[in-house]
């Protein structure tokens, strides 16, 4: 089916999320929609899927204008969507998830479970998915959940499939599987609209690329365009994708973790016998797919999570018996993974957020009452040093963009003498301009001699910052490798293959993205 958008505009109040978008997806085409975080991609997808109704413009399917009053209409018209955050209910079974909204019934509204199961089995067989119809969604790994989403769309005879950031949670190898599924769907005539901000994927998979920036279509491209071309199109100016940095000059070991294990309340092992060391003036990056224990590792260092076994020593002091507050006060700078939940308090002012983890410390407080003027002065000074664009420091922090909020967090954590910096996903949800700034800031912190532990799921970021890379898989460190290790090797390690074996495998078999990587290097 051919999907066509003509002049689609969507406003929220005075904010124009999508401005006169024109887009055509031909039948059997894989069309990538490329744009930064906040460029308006998701709004556009939700408009196509009937979750929002456009303020202007029209959507055409096979040249017929359509109007959707809700996702139900869109689905009926043959549009399927796999959301970035899966629209699956954790306590439902696969069968229940797939049939929801389109339940086969018998008798007085009772569900025909046999028929529903049969449908799931039929579709999974057709595409070679192995999914147990009886499994509970919450028990399935992320990749399998994504396949359930695809089954869901296909079970409604989707002719146009929208995939919103489908690779965000996948390993490179899982991504490969997804890519082969996409090609299979394409061969059977399904049109695919594929949303991403990852340049490599686009070039590897797409037949055609549309780039949007600040809600507008800024250009079309083909997979033959170089990454730099795509990046500058996406961001609107020349960007340097890599940050220059001097080679590390590691000093004596500062942080030393040995045999660290963490067990969840349900008895699940989250961290299993993790040992690592970081020297002063060195950046150690933790690479891995989300949910392999990175969060727990940083939380254990901060003391939010109790260690079941093992020790953490910082400059010779055992952190074990220390509370979170003591650890922070002893000089651990901590940039949490999820800014909006852990890093800032949205309703608090910029000032209050600036002192968030030092509110009861001098000079901001005498321990009982807080000193508002001191707090405000310090917040004003440091936020301007970190180039935070703000009105006044009394405004709620929610008035700032994601990138500026993150800079407030960094200003807070880096405006004092740190003996250790732990930063998780320091650039997640941040615009490209701020990414450069944040990377530079982190490298400057290293130059000051601070040992840095940086967790990132973005291989680009890891390769950009790391002096050494530790790869985590299922709560373990699968191996620690130098900062310039090959992407394919890292990808295999992220899937649990030990370093040596990964090197051997990578030499014989390249992933689609790894090939794109090699290609990019050749071009450069």
């Amino acid at each position, binding site marked *: 089916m051919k999907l066509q958008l003509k002049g689609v505009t969507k406003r929220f109040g005075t904010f124009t999320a999508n401005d006169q978008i024109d887009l055509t997806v031909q039948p059997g085409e894989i069309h990538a929609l490329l744009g930064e975080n906040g460029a308006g991609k998701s709004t556009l997808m939700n408009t196509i899927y009937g979750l929002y109704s456009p303020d202007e413009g029209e959507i055409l399917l096979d040249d017929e204008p359509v109007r959707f009053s809700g996702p139900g209409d869109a689905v009926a018209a043959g549009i399927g969507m796999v959301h970035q955050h899966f629209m699956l209910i954790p306590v439902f079974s696969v069968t229940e998830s797939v049939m*929801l909204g389109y339940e086969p019934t018998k008798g007085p509204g009772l569900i025909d479970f046999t028929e529903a199961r049969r449908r799931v089995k039929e579709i999974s067989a057709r595409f070679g998915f192995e999914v147990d119809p009886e499994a509970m969604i919450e028990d399935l790994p992320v*990749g399998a959940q994504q396949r359930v989403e695809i089954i869901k769309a296909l079970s409604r005879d989707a002719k146009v499939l929208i995939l919103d950031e489908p690779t965000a949670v996948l390993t490179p190898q899982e991504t490969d599987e997804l890519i082969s599924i996409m090609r299979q769907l394409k061969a059977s005539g399904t049109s695919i609209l594929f949303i991403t901000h990852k340049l490599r994927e686009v070039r590897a998979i797409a037949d055609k690329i549309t780039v949007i920036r600040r809600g507008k279509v800024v250009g079309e491209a083909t997979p033959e365009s170089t990454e730099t071309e795509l990046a500058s199109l996406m961001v609107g100016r020349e960007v340097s994708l890599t940050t220059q940095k001097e080679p590390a000059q590691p000093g004596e070991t500062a942080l030393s973790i040995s045999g660290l294990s963490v067990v969840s309340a349900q*008895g699940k092992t989250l961290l299993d016998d993790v040992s690592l060391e970081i020297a002063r003036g060195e950046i150690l990056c933790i690479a891995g797919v989300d949910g392999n224990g990175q969060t727990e590792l940083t939380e254990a260092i901060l003391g939010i999570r109790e260690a079941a076994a093992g020790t953490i020593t910082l400059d010779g002091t055992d952190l074990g018996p220390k509370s979170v507050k003591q650890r922070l006060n002893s000089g651990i700078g901590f940039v949490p993974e999820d800014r909006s939940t852990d890093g800032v308090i949205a309703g608090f002012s910029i000032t209050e957020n600036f002192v968030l983890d030092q509110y009861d410390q001098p000079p901001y407080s005498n321990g009982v009452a807080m000193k508002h003027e001191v707090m405000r002065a310090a917040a004003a000074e440091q936020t301007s040093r970190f180039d935070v664009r703000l009105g006044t420091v009394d405004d709620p922090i929610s008035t700032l963009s994601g990138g500026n909020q993150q800079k407030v967090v960094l200003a807070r954590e880096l405006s004092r003498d740190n003996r250790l910096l732990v930063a998780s996903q320091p650039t997640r949800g941040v615009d490209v301009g701020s990414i450069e700034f944040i990377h530079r800031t982190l490298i400057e912190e290293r130059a000051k001699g601070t040992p840095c532990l940086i967790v990132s799921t973005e291989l680009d970021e890891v390769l950009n910052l790391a002096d050494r890379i530790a790869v985590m898989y299922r709560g373990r460190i699968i191996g620690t490798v130098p900062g310039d290790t090959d992407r394919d090797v890292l990808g295999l390690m992220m899937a649990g293959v030990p370093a040596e074996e990964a090197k051997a495998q990578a030499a014989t078999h390249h992933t689609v993205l790894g090939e794109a990587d090699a290609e990019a290097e050749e071009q450069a």
Partner: protein
Amino acid sequence: MSEQTTAPETTAVHAEPLEQAEARLQPIRWKFPVTYILLGLLSLLVFTLLIPSGAVTQFRVSTANDFITFDAINVPSFGTALVLSILQLALAAWAVYAAVHRIRLGAWHPVLFGILFVLAFLVYAGAGRGAFIPMVTLLSGALMLSVPLIFGAMCGLVGERSGIINIAIEGQLLAGAFLAAVAASFFTSAYVGLLAAPFAGAAVGALLVWFAVKYHVNQIIVGVVLNVLVIGLTSFFYSTVLTQNAELWNTRQQLPRLPIPGLSQIPIIGPVLFNHTILVYLMYVIVFALSILVFKSRWGLRMRAVGEHPKAADTVGINVARTRVINTILAGAIAGMGGAYFTVGQGLAFGQEMSAGQGFIALAAMILGRWNPKGALLAALLFGFSTSLGQTLSTIGTPVPSEMLLMLPYVITIFAVAGFVGRVRPPAAEGVPYIK
């Protein structure tokens, strides 16, 4: 949190040792065995050893009106209590064994233990008092007292399963009681009252869901305020219209008992279960229907989807707002019908605040029953039983204050939400307004 995102398993090279670790690290759950041991010891040391020697406990297992009547059963108090206590301790030992070997015991275990414990208590309470323990009255009283609780719990369940927290069950019961009394009195027919009651509950439900869905007001706050509103309105009308012209607006009407032929003649079970008003039979129907519909029907599946993850439901074309509105109003009607119990169900005129906190116990029953119709039914029956026991014991006179028994439902619920009775997992999106 990251605990919920399971690690991918594409290449499960190193999976094995981890799973072993998980089995090893699985903590032994001591809560239940320890509770059993403590209760068993209580039964042995207090209920058994404090019995005066030679005392006899008399149970009456039928009433004079029953189709088949039995003589009272006399048992030697000490011996019976001793046997019951030993059985309890045996069950406790079994629980310890199961805990150490990480074997899961079925639901029969706590139920059996509970029955033995209650029996031992009854033997002790009635020992040497010369009064009969009227088992039929006790049990049918328990059922009667559970009626508003069960209706209320079903109301809460339907609402919360679709994502609307309902603290206003109390108000819905009271409104139902009020309208039932007024309508029954005006038309001099208890059945008209029964028909009218659901409308009152539905109206309160409609207000709740209107504020919750249209204006995104915190549902707990709306619920609390609606309770005050209903108390205010019913009391106001009670003090004005209902008092000024009581003959017209507030005379007693009672739903007649309708013994079910055949079934009601079965000894013990018959008088306890099948000799009631139509309200009780309606309750059977509603509980039975819900226990199937919630899990096996299209309506139930969509309701649960809306309560767990409204956006996911929206993306498959389910109208979240409409589902919530309809279900909450429907739920309100159920509670309203339950409210009819207080007036036409018992044959009483309306009195101020006559629901007396039953709505909150209904809420408790729903939570203890884990948002499941059968579970809520059992919890409500348990609460009804403890109240009935309190009433019975206060007539025969025992050392246990009736207030303690009346407190029991609330105490049990606190233990339940504190995680003592296993993990309580409410619908994920409950209380969260859905905003596109």
